[in-house]
C-alpha cells in the first residue's frame, strides 16, 4: 500500500501475467485451467491468489514456470513477463536458468514434493549446484545454514535425514529452505500450509514471513484460506473457475468485496472470532472447467445474476475511485454497495 502507483495494472511489474490461457487435456475433455488471467506481482510484495479447489491456482503457478504437465498441459495464449522477458517464449535452457534461481516454488505437499529417496540436505545441495559452480562441501554448508535459517533444530543432523523421517512442518521448512537457497526474486508458494495443523501452520507462515522479509523477494502466495491471506498478503487476487474475478489490496477487498463471489465466500466462512449463527452460503457448486457456462461463470450461483450475465463475459475493470481494485462483474456496483 506504500507504493500505490506500481499497483496500477500495466505499470512495470516484476512478474506480470497477461491474458494467460492454460489448457490441460483430461480423459473427459480439455480443461481450461486459466482463462485470460492477468495479474502483476511487484517487487517486495506478497500477492495472494485465493480460490476454491480446482479453480486453477496451481495451474497458474505452473504456467508461470513452464512446468505444466508435459504431454497434456499447454499455454495457448497470453504472456508471462518476468522482468519484461516473456517466459512462454523462453527456450528450455533459459527457463532452467530462471527456475530456482530467479523464480522458486514451494509446493503444497512437502511429503510428495520432496524426493523420498534423497536426503534433504542433498536436495538443497542439488538446487544450489544446479545454478552455481560451487563445490559440494561448500554447497552443503550452505544447505545446513539454510536449514538453520528456516528454524530446523539440529540442522547438521537433519540434513542427512530422509523426508519421511521429518515431521510435516519440518518438511515444509525444508521446501522453503530449498526455495530460498538462491535468493530468488519471486517465490511462488502453492498452498504451503494447507496440509499442516494450525499450530504448525502458524509456525511455518511465521518462518515464511520472516524469510521473505530477509530476502527482499516477492511472494506469490496461493491459498484457499482467507484467513491466511488476511494475515500475510499485501494484495489478493480472487480466482473463480479459471478466471480472476477480483483483485486488489487485501483491506480493500475484505472491507468491501465488489464481486458477489468474494462477498459470498467471506460471508460463508465460520469464524473463530464470530458469534455462531447461521452461515451464509453460496448455492450450487463450481462449474466444470471443461464446459464452463457462457458469460459470467459465477452467474448460475449468483444472486445478482441477470440475463446479461449468462450471455456476456464481464470485462475486468478497474474499480473507480479506490486504489487498484479490479473486478470482473456486471453488477459490481450493486454488490459493492450492498
Amino acid at each position, binding site marked *: 500500500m506504500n507504493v500505490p502507483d506500481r499497483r496500477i495494472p500495466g505499470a512495470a511489474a516484476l512478474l506480470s501475467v497477461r491474458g494467460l490461457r492454460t489448457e490441460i487435456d483430461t*480423459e473427459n475433455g480439455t480443461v481450461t485451467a486459466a482463462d485470460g488471467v492477468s495479474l502483476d506481482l511487484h517487487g517486495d510484495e506478497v500477492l495472494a491468489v485465493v480460490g476454491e479447489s480446482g479453480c486453477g491456482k496451481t495451474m497458474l503457478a505452473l504456467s508461470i514456470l513452464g512446468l505444466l504437465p508435459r504431454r497434456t498441459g499447454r499455454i495457448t495464449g497470453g504472456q508471462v513477463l518476468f522482468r519484461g522477458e516473456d517466459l512462454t517464449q523462453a527456450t528450455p535452457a533459459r527457463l532452467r536458468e530462471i527456475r530456482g534461481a530467479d523464480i522458486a516454488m514451494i509446493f503444497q505437499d512437502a511429503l510428495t514434493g520432496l524426493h523420498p529417496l534423497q536426503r534433504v540436505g542433498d536436495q538443497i545441495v542439488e538446487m544450489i549446484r544446479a545454478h552455481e559452480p560451487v563445490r559440494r562441501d561448500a554447497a552443503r554448508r550452505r544447505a545446513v545454514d539454510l536449514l538453520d535459517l528456516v528454524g530446523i533444530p539440529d540442522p547438521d543432523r537433519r540434513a542427512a535425514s530422509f523426508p519421511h523421517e521429518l515431521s510435516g512442518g519440518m518438511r515444509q521448512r525444508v521446501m522453503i529452505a530449498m526455495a530460498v537457497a538462491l535468493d530468488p526474486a519471486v517465490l511462488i508458494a502453492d498452498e504451503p500450509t494447507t496440509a499442516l495443523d494450525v499450530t504448525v501452520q502458524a509456525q511455518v507462515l511465521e518462518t515464511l514471513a520472516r524469510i521473505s522479509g530477509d530476502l527482499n523477494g516477492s511472494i506469490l502466495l496461493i491459498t484457499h484460506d482467507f484467513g491466511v491471506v488476511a494475515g500475510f498478503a499485501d494484495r489478493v487476487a480472487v480466482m473463480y473457475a479459471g478466471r480472476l474475478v477480483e483483485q486488489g489490496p487485501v483491506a480493500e477487498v475484505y472491507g468491501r468485496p465488489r464481486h458477489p463471489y468474494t*462477498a459470498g465466500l467471506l*460471508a460463508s466462512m465460520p469464524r473463530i472470532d464470530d458469534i455462531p449463527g447461521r452461515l*451464509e*452460503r453460496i448455492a*450450487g457448486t463450481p462449474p466444470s472447467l471443461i464446459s464452463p457456462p457462457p458469460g459470467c461463470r459465477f452467474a*448460475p*450461483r449468483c*444472486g445478482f445474476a441477470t440475463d446479461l450475465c449468462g450471455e456476456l463475459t464481464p470485462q475486468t475493470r478497474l474499480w473507480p475511485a479506490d486504489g487498484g481494485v479490479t473486478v470482473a462483474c456486471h453488477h459490481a456496483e450493486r454488490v459493492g454497495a*450492498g
Partner: protein
Amino acid sequence: MSEQGPGPGGGMGGEAPVGVPDVPMGGGETESLATATPISPWRLALRRFLRRKPAVISVAILGVIVVGATFADQIAPFGALEQDLDAILHGPDGTHLLGTDTLGRDNLSRILHGGRVSLLVGITVALIAGGVGTLIGILAGYYGGLIDATLMRLTDTLLALPGLMVVIIAARLLGDGTWDVVLVLSGIAWMTLARIVRGKVLTLKEREFVEAARALGVPARQIMRRHLLPNLVGEITVTVSLTVAAAILAESTLSFLGLGVSATHTATWGNMLGGNEGFVTTAPWLVWGPGLAIVITALCVNFIGDGLRDSLDPTQGKL
C-alpha cells in the same frame, strides 16, 4: 418427511446479504451435472476402452477368432479328425487352404477346431484361477490375522515354487486330457491374483465406504460381495484376461514337452504346434498356422488386458 417446499437449506432468504436467491438446492445443483442420464463406472470404463485403438482392434480380431472357433463345426471345411490319406502333408491349395498334416487332416479346420479347445483351456484356467485367486485374496485381505497369514503363506509358497517344474511334475502325475491340463495350469495360476486382490482389499477395507458399511451393520459377506468385489473388478479382469494368454501359451509349452492335451482325439493349437514345430522348414503351414493363432490370440489378449487396465482402473499403472 413432513416438511414441504424448499429443502432443508431453505428458509434463509432473508439472511442473505449478497442476495443469494433461495434456489432449492436439489434443483440448483442438477444443473451442474454434465449429462441427463446417469453414467455408471462401467460405461465410463467402456468409453475409455473404446478410445484405445490397439485394444479395440484386438477385440475385433479376437472376436473373429472366437467366432471362428465357436462355430468351427459350421465354418470349417473339414472335420478336425477327418483324414485324407492321399493328401498327407500337402501344401496349401484350393481344397486345403492351409495345407494338411501327417494324417492328411485339413490344417485350417484343425486350427478352427483346435482354437475351441485352446480358448476353452485358456478361458477356463483363467476363470478358475480368477475365482480361486479372488476368493482367497478377499478372505485373506478382509479378515486379516490368522486367516490372512495362513492363506498368504500358502500363496507365497506356491508363488515361490519354480512354476514350470511344478507344472511338469503335476502334468506327469495327471493324464493328458483337456481337463487334466486345465487343472494343472489352474493350480499355479491363481496366486498372482490372490496377492493382487489381497493387496487391494487391504487398502479398500481401510476406505471409508467399507467402514461406513460396517458402521451401518452390513454383514461381512455382503460387504465382500457388494463393496469389495465390484471395486476389484478392474484388477481381476486385467489379471484374468492376461491369464488367458498365459494359459494358452503354457498349454503349448506342455505340448512341446509332450505333456499337453493328447493329440489323438483333440486338436489344440498347443499340440498342433508342439507336435509339428519340426516341420518349420518342410511343411511350414503346420507350424505357422497354429503358431500364429497362438501368438495373435495372446497378443490380442495382452492388448485387451492393457486396455482394460487403463480403462477399468486408470490409477493402476503397474504391469
